[in-house]
């Protein structure tokens, strides 16, 4: 590693800040929908326990959402500081997509988050439920725009290039709905759902281990395991479709993920090994003959292109991508196994008498984040050496910066992020460690009212004053 290389440092800085950032939105997207589900169930069944659960997860959502906003501000400025050439060239296409993300997220935050966090005895259940739905919808909108922008970088279309070398939009519809976007969006939204389900499941499992009769813990655990059992297998199918789409548009990425240096007809599936980019081979590999071709082409002797088909400077680094992909798939298989196992327990009526399963679910709590990060590393490192695929390289995108400046800011970000988000994670875990209080309501009394948006007059009376 050459730490006097500004490009490398800028890449590390982006990877570090975006990895920290994605954890919170992934959790917020899933949690917003889970909150809407809980509230809907409460309105539909009238059972108080759903409301207790809603109030419990609401507080956790507030902290996670706050950290997502704060770490997101850094992202919106980082394109300019470290990737100014990229900003200048790609701004006309990507900028408006991100602008829409800011506008829609801002709108949601200003309008509905406050009502949702406020508790419903102030605005009435119907308006409150509408607000919760809008918050969930807002997280979708954010994901929609950001993933559209990111997908365009992978599969650019609908643009032209002007004399200043800028990408300019020709057909917005084509830009937004670029070829990899639907797959990436579906894959990420499902990932957010599963990630949240595993956190909820782990929390439920923790409380079951302490008190197996805790009704709120039973509901949490059961709902989360339904999610794992149903959605994790669907995610495997969507992931496979996403992979086939990638094979069509970014075959070099697939070759790096599979560890294929040579082009085969009837390629093996390499289970494990250590790709060696310099020697163009995979060391210590364990492989299943012909299965690779079958998975990718649905033909036992289909042709699969290897990395040697591209010049060295156009290949993504196989070692990182090969392993991050396997970590993601491995985590996914564990989730499917957990989901199916709990189905069996349900059938045997022993879901609430299975301490070892609860312990397994507790251990699986963070696995969604691991899979999300591994998946993003796979797709983004697999995009290398390009920022805009096939059109603009990462090396061309970087600011004319000084390595010392990037290095210094990188160290500062690492120190600050670990300190602050470490504390934040600690508070989140502490909130999840608490049991769900029956009949409790609202945020703690000594905390200020935090809301932007509609807070009708009854709030004021509630808040200890007379309007």
């Amino acid at each position, binding site marked *: 590693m050459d730490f006097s290389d500004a490009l490398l440092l800028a890449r590390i800085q982006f990877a570090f800040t975006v990895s920290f950032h994605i954890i919170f939105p992934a959790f917020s997207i899933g949690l917003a929908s889970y909150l809407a589900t809980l509230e809907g169930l409460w309105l539909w069944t009238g059972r108080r326990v759903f409301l207790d659960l809603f109030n419990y997860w609401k507080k956790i959502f507030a902290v996670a959402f706050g*950290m997502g906003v704060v770490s997101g501000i850094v992202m919106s400025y980082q394109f300019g*500081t470290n990737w100014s050439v990229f900003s200048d060239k790609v701004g006309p296409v990507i900028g408006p997509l991100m602008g829409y993300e800011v506008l829609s997220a801002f709108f949601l935050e200003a309008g509905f988050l406050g009502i949702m966090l406020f508790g419903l005895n102030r605005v009435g259940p119907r308006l409150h439920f509408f607000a919760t739905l809008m918050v969930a919808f807002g997280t979708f909108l954010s994901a929609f725009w950001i993933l559209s922008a990111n997908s365009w970088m992978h599969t650019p279309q609908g643009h032209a290039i002007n004399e200043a070398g800028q990408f300019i939009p020709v057909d917005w519809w084509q830009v937004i709905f670029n070829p990899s976007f639907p797959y990436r969006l579906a894959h990420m939204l499902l990932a957010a759902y599963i990630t949240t389900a595993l956190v909820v499941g782990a929390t439920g499992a923790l409380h079951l281990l302490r008190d197996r009769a805790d009704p709120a813990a039973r509901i949490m655990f059961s709902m989360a395991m339904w999610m794992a059992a149903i959605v994790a297998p669907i995610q495997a199918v969507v992931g496979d479709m996403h992979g086939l789409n990638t094979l069509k548009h970014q075959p070099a990425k697939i070759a790096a993920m599979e560890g294929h240096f040579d082009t085969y007809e009837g390629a093996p599936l390499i289970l494990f090994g250590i790709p060696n980019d310099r020697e163009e081979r995979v060391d210590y590999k364990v492989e299943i003959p012909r299965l690779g071709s079958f998975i990718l082409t649905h033909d036992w002797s289909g042709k699969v292109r290897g990395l040697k088909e591209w010049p060295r400077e156009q290949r993504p680094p196989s070692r990182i991508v090969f392993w991050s992909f396997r970590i993601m798939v491995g985590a996914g298989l564990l989730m499917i196994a957990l989901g199916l196992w709990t189905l069996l327990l349900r059938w045997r009526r022993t879901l609430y008498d299975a301490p070892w399963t609860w312990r397994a679910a507790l251990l699986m709590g963070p696995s969604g984040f691991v899979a999300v990060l591994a998946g993003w590393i796979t797709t983004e490192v697999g995009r290398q050496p390009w920022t805009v695929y096939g059109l603009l390289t990462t090396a061309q995108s970087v600011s004319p910066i000084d390595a010392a400046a990037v290095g210094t800011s990188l160290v500062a970000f690492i120190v600050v992020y670990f300190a602050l988000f470490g504390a*934040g994670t600690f508070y989140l875990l502490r909130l999840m460690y608490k049991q769900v209080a029956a009949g409790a309501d609202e945020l703690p009394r000594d905390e200020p009212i935090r809301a*932007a*948006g509609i807070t009708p007059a009854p709030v004021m009376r509630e*808040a200890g004053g007379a309007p």
Partner: protein
Amino acid sequence: MTLDLPFIWAALIAFAVLAYVILDGFDLGVGILFPFMPHRKHRDEMMNSVAPVWDGNETWLVLGGGGLFAVFPLAYAVIMPALYAPLIVMLLGLIFRGVAFEFRWKTERGRFLWDWAFAGGSTLAAFAQGIALGALVQGIPVADRAYAGGWWDWLTPFSLLTGVALVVGYALLGATWLVYKAEGEVQARAYRFAMLAAIGTVALIGAVSLWTPFLRDIYMQRWLAWPQILYTAPVPLLVAATTFVLLKSLREKRELSPFLASLALFVLCFVGLGIGFYPYIVPHSVTIWDAAGPDASLGFLLIGALALLPLILAYTAYSYWVFRGKVNAKGGHYH
């Protein structure tokens, strides 16, 4: 009929930046004043006065930065590297104070740490923004669609002065905000700080204004040459009038007028800067029209901005209306 989209967008982004400065300005100011208010109950009260609105205020910063990236990508690509260090410091400061808002209420033992994070982060962010402003006023050299200066160009005596000026100016906004929102001891202290900050702010505005024309000829011509002076003279005259109103209202122990007068001071300074910058978006190398992206980009985003910005503004106004009146340490508002 063709619209001059770059001009419309320049006005919109200028508005977003102004909205950010005056809105986040007072809650940063509350953080700057934190060390001078040692009592915990007072600090709770101060924090509660901005708790409902601060993150909405900060979003204007993302809107300004995001808008610049989308609409004036060349300006974004030049200004960000030019102001690299102050921007990073500003972001770190904002992170600190942002999480302090969340976490200060979650702990007893660690509360003093979050108090320091809130105060330090606010002061640092304000100082960095002031330095960035000074660096912009000095002008940013551009060659071949990229920043063409050095890594330390932003650091000059002038930019340090504007840094201090903005910290004092935000402290004025924070203090007059507290005069409006608080009662009793906190309000009494806020009056004293507001008086000091008012005198400091006006003195610093004067110093910066006198220094600026000697930085570059273009400012000299804009501000002091005949006949332009006929157009520009109202600005300093209005500043003087506003100062008079501000000091008078503080002496008479008015509650809302000092805050409004302080806001007016900021708006006037902003207009003054605009006069000095126009038609450049990167002073004095890239004009609004040079930096603008294609109309296809500007028009596409304008639809969303025109649809959503009024709603956002209406919500913002409404939430300020709901939270009008006094705050207390328990987090309640009453009027």
